[in-house]
């Protein structure tokens, strides 16, 4: 009768760490802790073999035959479900309020793997659908109970771990996020197309998600494309096995997200309805925000129009890599302090203007920036509150430099750098010293630059 059930079990090895009144706690050699049935002659510290059959689900209930116990649990769950159908306000619910099960938002995440996440009105994921084969190889269920941005982060993380994408290489990976939202948290009923979806709610949701991408350590390592869709579009796209967001953008034949966004003209076409958030653009915004933030804390003001305009121009273009590198070089090599100061000061003075302009151009970008600023502020505060201004300045430069390095270097080495970002005081100061020395020797800088480039190439080769 139980032949197949037995096969599914495994022999586990447990170290007895606690003898309860009617249960034993073991620590498996994988570091998992489990309650198992109490049996004779077991002592603390003995190493024993057991199977899932011995595992207790709930140790507070005395039971020696787990099998029957499990049936009892199963039966009571069925009972509870039946009862709750009729009596919604059952006492049980008071102890643990049930999660709202209405689907208010559907978020299609296409990386390949493709998932559809169903969120309730509180933006908590209550259901996950793996939309293709690749998605099924990932533990997508693990995002249930998370909120939307956490879930996206988790999926990106898992996709990276399963090598569908590589968040630490130079390659252009795109995460396509398509949002479908019902009006004012009303239910989306997939069978019923009569429900009018609220375009505005969807738009707000899209903006929220865009914002949150910036604040995540993982999500800002990949390119994002965010777009909203109607439910009808989502369904049609699903039927045709086309990523929903691309379907909205007019794609009708099968194409992967990566392929689509590798073409510059397609990317532009997508922007008419959606928003592309490049990791380069993000980093620039972050860098920008940092220096602006630093200046905001000081009160010196001097004009320097030209530079600012150059900078703005750069920023507005979501620049391609070469430009970024050029600028990086400038920043590294132009170590002349006055110049840097000028630049900083310019930003202070033009901050108001910037904001107005940004508003005109792109509200969302502005929002992103603000958020990045906040984040940065936190970081700076974390690092050190009492430092003198000069040091502050150095530090921000230092951070900028880190970023530059992040971009230039292969990010396998990133961990060390990130530690620098988490830096405690001493590290920062040491680095600053180094930096000053480096500044004295432009040539050394050049060499370093070359080395970096070489390193990048090598890494690239290694990957190939």
């Amino acid at each position, binding site marked *: 009768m*139980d032949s197949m059930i*037995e096969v599914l079990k495994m022999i586990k090895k447990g170290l007895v760490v606690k003898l309860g009144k009617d249960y034993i*706690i073991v620590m498996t050699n994988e570091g998992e802790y489990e309650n198992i049935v109490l049996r004779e002659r077991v002592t603390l*510290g003995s190493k024993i073999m057991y199977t899932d059959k011995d595992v207790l689900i709930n*140790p507070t209930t005395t039971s020696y035959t787990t099998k029957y116990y499990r049936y009892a649990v199963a039966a009571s769950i069925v009972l509870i479900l039946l009862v709750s159908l009729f009596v919604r306000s059952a006492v049980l619910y008071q102890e643990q309020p049930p999660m709202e099960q209405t689907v208010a938002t559907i978020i299609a995440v296409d990386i390949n793997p493709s998932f559809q996440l169903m969120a309730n009105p509180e933006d908590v994921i209550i259901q996950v659908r793996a939309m293709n084969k690749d998605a099924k190889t990932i*533990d997508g269920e693990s995002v249930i109970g998370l909120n939307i941005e*956490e879930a996206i982060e988790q999926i990106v*993380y898992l996709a990276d771990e399963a090598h569908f994408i590589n968040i630490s290489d130079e390659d252009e990976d795109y995460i396509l996020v398509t949002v479908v939202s019902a009006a004012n948290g009303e239910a989306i009923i997939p069978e019923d197309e009569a429900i009018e979806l609220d375009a505005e709610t969807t738009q707000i949701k899209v903006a929220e998600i865009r914002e949150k991408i910036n604040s995540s350590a*993982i999500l800002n390592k990949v390119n994002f494309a965010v777009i909203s869709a109607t439910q009808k579009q989502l369904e049609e796209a699903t039927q045709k096995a086309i990523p929903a967001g691309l379907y909205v953008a007019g794609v009708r034949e099968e194409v992967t997200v990566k392929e689509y966004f590798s073409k510059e003209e397609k990317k532009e076409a997508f922007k008419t309805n959606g928003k592309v958030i490049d990791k380069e653009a993000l980093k620039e915004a972050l860098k920008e925000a940092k220096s602006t933030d630093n200046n905001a804390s000081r009160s010196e003001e001097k004009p320097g129009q030209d530079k600012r305009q150059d900078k703005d121009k750069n920023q507005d273009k979501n620049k391609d890599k070469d430009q970024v590198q050029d600028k990086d070089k400038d920043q590294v090599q132009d170590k002349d302090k006055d110049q840097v100061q000028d630049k900083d000061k310019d930003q202070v003075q033009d901050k108001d203007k910037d904001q107005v302009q940004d508003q005109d151009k792109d509200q969302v970008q502005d929002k992103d920036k603000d958020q990045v600023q906040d984040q940065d502020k936190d970081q700076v505060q974390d690092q050190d509150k009492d430092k003198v201004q000069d040091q502050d300045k150095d530090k921000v430069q230092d951070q900028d430099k880190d970023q530059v390095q992040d971009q230039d270097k292969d990010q396998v080495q990133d*961990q060390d750098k990130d530690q620098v970002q988490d830096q405690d005081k001493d590290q920062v100061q040491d680095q600053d010293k180094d930096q000053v020395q480096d500044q004295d020797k432009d040539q050394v800088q050049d060499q370093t630059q070359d080395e970096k480039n070489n390193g990048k190439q090598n890494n690239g080769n290694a990957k190939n």
Partner: protein
Amino acid sequence: MSKKLDSKIMQLKNTDNQEQMNQLIIDYQPFVLNVITELKKSYVDIDNDDEFSVGLMAFYEALEKYNEARGDFLSFARLVIDSRIKDYWAQQKSEASIEELERLSTYQDVEEEVLLRKEIEDFEKVLRLFGLSFEKLVASSPKHQDTRKRAKEIGLRASEEQDLMTHLYNKKRLPVTQISRRFQVSLVIIKRSKIMITSIMIIAKEKFGRIMEWIQ
């Protein structure tokens, strides 16, 4: 279902498929262990698993002797295992004096056991300082094997970072954000495995070498 197993075994016997036969024995190891555990009313000790070997041999014997006339295979196997284990115990009893002396652990073994027990007791005390208990560790153990592995890895790596350890011990709280940033791991994952990561870091910090050896 069992009928299927019965006929499968007959087929394997008839075609003399050794490979699949071996696989079958491996698949049914938990079954053998369960039979012994129930008979013994106690768990089989890892360091003293002669009973398990006897049980596996009995299972093999059952496979050899089985034919459809004997009815359900698993019931038959259970009978054979029961009987062989009891034989083994009887034999043990008669040789008790010699066997026992041999088994009576050396001084070193006893010392090891005492030290391990001490580590476990100390571990529980330190856990309490952090507002944790073994019960809580049971409740929060990640179910997914990969998640567990990852949590263990993060815990071990974080143990090597002095500042993270200091933060954990001073504030009695895991520095989740810092760990997330430093190791480039999703915040969600760390939050979910918070307790497990904390426990691994405690084991490392307190130098519970015997427990550490067990989980590595």
